[in-house]
């Protein structure tokens, strides 16, 4: 921050810096309370979960026991759910990002028949309520026998219209037409140009869409809830909410509450890790969509 350096030593600057940091810290506390709550809760026995102060650790450290219970309850089906979630999210994320990049590139760099109409359709798609789609998707997929298979979650998740929008804007910005023309003059085919020249420059946008689509599938609840029946196929969100329902109805015994807490913690850790690893990409890419729109 070279621009601010000349004022950096003034007293007023240090003062405002202190107050602004305090303001950030306040918001951080708000953000962190539920996260902290799930961390604390997953270290507690079921009795302590309801018997001790919610936002601090109890004397009895029950974390490893909870983890063990989590991964052994119902013959260890939680690890299956975790693997399912990873499978659905990775396949959907990569696929959605790739197809969105293709499509965004096409919308950005080519003129063709039906361009305006199809782009308007893609943009309009974000306004469609989820419930309006899930029921007909269920009925249609039933007819072709895909309900209760991984495809029932993966195929609809590959369609990620905001990704197309973002990639179009990103390609407008990051990819100059001259570069592509130069490739054409050299006699390169369009596929060659895309993979050898364009894709590298579009990578930050691609990574952003990848993580957005990944998170959207990881967090999805309603679609798998309707489209899957066997608990063997559930992602973590559906499985955990079923355990939670079991816990509240009492028929599974209230011991389930601490398992649900441990499961919640375990299910958010991988996404946070993915954010940290890929932060370089999404921070840049997310901006592009907004700036240029």
């Amino acid at each position, binding site marked *: 921050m070279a621009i601010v350096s000349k004022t950096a030593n003034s007293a007023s600057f240090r003062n405002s810096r202190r107050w602004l940091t305090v303001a950030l810290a306040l918001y951080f506390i708000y953000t962190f309370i539920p996260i902290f709550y799930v961390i604390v809760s997953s270290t507690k026995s079921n009795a302590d979960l309801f018997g001790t102060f919610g936002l601090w650790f109890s004397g009895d450290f029950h974390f490893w026991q909870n983890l063990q*219970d989590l991964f052994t309850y119902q013959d260890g089906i939680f690890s299956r759910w975790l693997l399912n979630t990873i499978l659905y999210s990775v396949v959907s994320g990569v696929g959605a990002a790739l197809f969105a990049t293709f499509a965004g590139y096409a919308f950005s760099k080519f003129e063709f028949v039906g361009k305006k109409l199809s782009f308007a359709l893609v943009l309009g798609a974000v306004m469609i309520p989820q419930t309006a789609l899930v029921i007909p998707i269920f009925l249609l997929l*039933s*007819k072709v*026998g895909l309900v209760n298979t991984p495809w029932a979650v993966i195929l609809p998740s590959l369609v990620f219209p905001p990704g197309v929008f973002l990639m179009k804007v990103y390609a407008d910005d990051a990819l100059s037409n001259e570069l592509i023309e130069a490739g054409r003059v050299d006699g390169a085919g369009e596929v060659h140009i895309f993979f050898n020249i364009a894709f590298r420059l579009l990578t930050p946008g691609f990574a952003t869409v990848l993580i957005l689509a990944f998170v959207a599938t990881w967090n999805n609840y309603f679609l798998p809830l309707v489209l899957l029946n066997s*608990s063997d196929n559930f992602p973590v969100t559906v499985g955990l909410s079923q355990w939670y329902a079991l816990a509240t109805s009492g028929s599974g015994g*209230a011991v389930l509450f601490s398992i649900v807490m441990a499961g919640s913690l375990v299910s958010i850790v991988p996404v946070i890790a993915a954010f940290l690893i890929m932060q370089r990409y999404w921070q840049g890419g997310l901006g592009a969509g907004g700036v240029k729109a």
Partner: protein
Amino acid sequence: MEKDSKRMTLDRRQFMQAAGAGLAATAVAGLPFAAAAQDKVELLLWAWTPDTQVQADMFTKKYPNISVKVENVGQGGPHYVKLRNAIQAGTGLPDLAQMEFNSIPSFKQLGVLADLGAAANPVKDQFIDWTWKAVSDGDKVYGIPWDSGPMGLLYRNDVFEKNKIEVPGTWDAYSEASLKLATDAPGTYMSNFGVSDAGWVAAVLWQAGWRPFHTEGTNITIKLNDDIAKKWAAYWQKLVDAKAVDTKPMWTTEWFAALDDGVHASWVTAAWAPVLMQNSMKKSVGLWRAAPMPQWTAGGTVTSNWGGSTFAAMTTTPHPEEAALFATFMGSDPEAAALWNSKQFLFPVLKSLIDDKALMGAPNAFYGGQAVNEIFVVSENQVDPSFEFAPFQDFVNQTMQDEMSASIAGSGTLGDAFDRLQDKVVAYATDQGYTVS
């Protein structure tokens, strides 16, 4: 937690012994017919009761050609949503499904419940009469019961003694006790008025004589807001207005805690509740007792049922005989039925188990050594069998919850809620093509 997981493994070992013994016993007793499949058949059962697979495996031990896979597609409501979606899609139904008593008319109406009569009628006399009446229509049988919920009263002996409250035998006495407790011990309630569970409302109204539905083909009589409902609504309205009952949403941790902490001094509930309480409560061990359900007339002996389940076969199954055999086994096999009681802690539906003095008379430490089941055995035999559910009971339940909760929150009285309910249900039934009277 550690204790619990040990209990689980112990149960499993016990089960292995029980299953071994059961195998020997059923080989002798046998089922009244022998429809064992020649080819290997796999049946799919949707059920949410924990460990249903255990009984299913007992069946496979006896009939090695028929294996049964149990899937949990959701608890209660979501389970029926899945079934209805599969019906709408025209594919994806399981061979069999768990079906509560109050859902049978709805799914029968949709034409998906297979007639199990051929396999089941020979064992009908083994079942408590009202449970059989609830699943059958003459010789046609739409589900085999294995769990029931005759009503009784669970109460906190400590709170009653401290506040000098007699165990109420009638609803009048119950109301007086509620008002007294509200005055003498503010913050303590005689009960929670559980309008967030329409099943509970239907059960207590059932006892009062409410018979809201009678269906014959496409003709349906709807009397949701009759005098009985209005009288009942006024009864609870008075207690709500006097703040003499709590109105917490049921089945939340807050609600469980209120029972455990003595905030709620009693609960008019079903026979499956004693064990549920025992499993969920930590502080109130030894303080609870059971008593008969309060009566509307002194000395009365009318009770009702809340919950309870059956297994039903779907008409779409390619293996109707095997499915019927399985459902019948799950309800009537002595060892399987005993296990529903000892492992899943459900209240039995077989006369032989209800009459089993050793089983039903066992003292229970959580209830201060009282043999709580004896109370519910009496209730089971007093259930008035004439109650009918609607062929669209989920809509009724949903609307009832909405309207009664709205009244509790201040829009009109509970009596108004029944009027609104009547209007909405009549409109819905008419819209669905029924002739309403």
